[in-house]
């Protein structure tokens, strides 16, 4: 039986490149597009704000259609949730899946927005997705099997049913190819967000240029002062390496100790 294609919305932000500070797509959101493609979903980009040039670059990674919500600045969460629930995005039916990067890069970067949208939609959210596949081939509420990325290459499998929100992790391998022809051909539609009021004043938090501060470091880091063994016997060299690795904690202690 042929699976019906999922209808996915990819949340797009106007990111900036951390190194240069120039407008740039956010890596996790690019992977979100890739995840939508990996799931065989029909995907629409959704951006809470006016069309900005960087959205075209997202389109190059595989979005033919991007919807911009004009006037969403006052309350982007409400605007996004309304647009997702409105039924106006896909002609074929409601949205099955919302994909986002785990954290934006260029705004507050709190990583809260996908959660807030999920809360508003009343949908479950699974964060830090490294890979996903459909657990059930078809059906009205598709079930997804998700690989959640955890530090040091660890993974956790999670199953989530029904319409849901996924936030995609940096280690997700589903980076789509950038195609210039797609970027220039994409349609950027603007829809009114239907939110009253003006953007909230940037009160609360004061902002200034980032200051790099030293981090606490593990004591073992300062212990190694560049010890050099010149031409040792191979057995002594092996012992020295093993002891050093044990002292660093990267090599487990010998079996039976």
């Amino acid at each position, binding site marked *: 039986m042929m699976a019906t294609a999922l209808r996915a919305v990819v949340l797009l932000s106007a990111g900036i490149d951390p190194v240069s500070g120039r407008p740039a797509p956010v890596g996790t959101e690019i992977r979100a597009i890739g995840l939508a493609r990996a799931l065989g979903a029909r995907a629409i980009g959704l951006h809470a704000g006016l069309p900005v040039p960087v959205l075209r670059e997202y389109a190059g990674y595989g979005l033919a259609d991007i919807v911009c919500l004009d006037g969403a600045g006052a309350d982007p969460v409400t605007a996004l949730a309304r647009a997702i629930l409105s039924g106006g995005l896909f002609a074929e039916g409601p949205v099955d899946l919302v994909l986002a990067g785990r954290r934006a890069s260029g705004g507050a970067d709190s990583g809260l927005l996908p959660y807030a949208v999920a809360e508003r939609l009343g949908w479950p959210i699974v964060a830090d997705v490294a890979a996903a596949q459909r657990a059930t081939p078809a059906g009205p509420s598709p079930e997804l099997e998700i690989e959640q990325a955890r530090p040091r290459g660890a993974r956790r499998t999670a199953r989530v049913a029904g319409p849901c929100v996924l936030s995609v992790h940096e280690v997700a*391998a589903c980076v789509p190819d950038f195609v210039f022809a797609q970027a220039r051909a994409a349609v950027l539609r603007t829809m009114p967000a239907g939110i009253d009021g003006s953007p909230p004043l940037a009160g609360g938090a004061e902002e200034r240029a980032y200051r790099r501060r030293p981090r606490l470091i593990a004591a073992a880091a300062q212990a190694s002062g560049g010890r050099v063994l010149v031409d040792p016997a191979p057995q002594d060299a092996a012992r020295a390496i093993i*002891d050093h690795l044990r002292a660093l904690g990267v090599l487990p202690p010998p079996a039976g100790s």
Partner: protein
Amino acid sequence: MTGRPRRDPRAERAARQVGLGARPRFDLAQPPGGLSGIGPSGRPRRDPRAEQAALLVPGGDRPRLARGGTGGIGPARASAPAPVARVIRMDDPACLVVVVPDLPDGRLDRLDRQVLGAARVLADAASGAVVLLGGAGTPDLMADVGPAGADRLALVDLASDDPEYRAATVCAALAALSPRHVLFPDSDDGADLARRVAAHTGQGLMTGVEVLTARQAIRPSRAGRREQISAPPMLLTLAPDRVAPYAGEAREGRPLPVDAPPVPPGAGRIRASALRAADPATMNLAEAPFVVAAGNGVTDFALFRSVVAGLHATPGASRVVCDAGSMPRAAQVGASGTVLDAVCYLAFGIAGAPQHLQGLGRVEHVVAVNTDLHAAMVARAGLSVIADAQRVMPALRDALAAEDG
């Protein structure tokens, strides 16, 4: 002349410098000049060295702190204070500061302890008490939370596989406790929980806080190019290695009953399984914690692979080796290959071309086995063995095999 002792910030900074090289690093946990006891202002001074000594792990010929944070079993040193006799009680706190730790394996880890240290900063300024929330079903924890800085232990079961259920449990407990601040570790799971709680309660959340004092919290924003400063909010997650763990006299860690209505089992919309550790032999090089790499000085790749397997490491290689087809392209370390995020990098027969060293971006510890004493890799290494890698590898393989019996 005022007669006041003058500080020399440069000298203090220099005294805190650890490690040499292109990026000087500073250990702010270290007191300038190593003073302890009573400082010039007359206030009692912390002795972070002694605090560190308390975390020392026995064995090995160089000092090592328990990275997992379960230490505190180190041998008494001459400079270490006498074993703690007194426990600080906090009977009538003005407010509560809640910490929701990760408790991997049911114990406080390094970041959990730092979060407790941060909570202490906020609580002390407001005569409040630090409450550790969670930990039900982890008997080891009881003895550990007081020394780590918690006045209270609100035993709540947060071990569910359903993140929504855990968040609901935390929300219910917080509603009952009405804390002034709630601190989470900014780990993957901790930040996930914090964001769920923030989204559910609508409370403000500052994630990835890097500087925390009683008056202000600072976190990076706008792709790390700017930073936000505000008064410490209700909810925050603390970035790793930014605030020192609590190292004062032990707190009480007294159980605190939470008068929260039981949380009904959730709809079970998310069913998560247990964490699976990665197989080092096949895992993604960029995520691997321990990488062992072969360069031009390696000719026997079957031997190399057996050494890598014996070390439970992830194999890597230099460009020359990948170009020759001796190792797959995915194993290439360097600017044009993979940039590592490993804790340790062991390089066999790699001289260390600039392009290759760029691939060691964030690697903390480098071990080099190389015939050339003047190789760039040797300059970068914490331990260097100046010898033929082809002769060291068999010895290493045999030594590891002998240990495993």
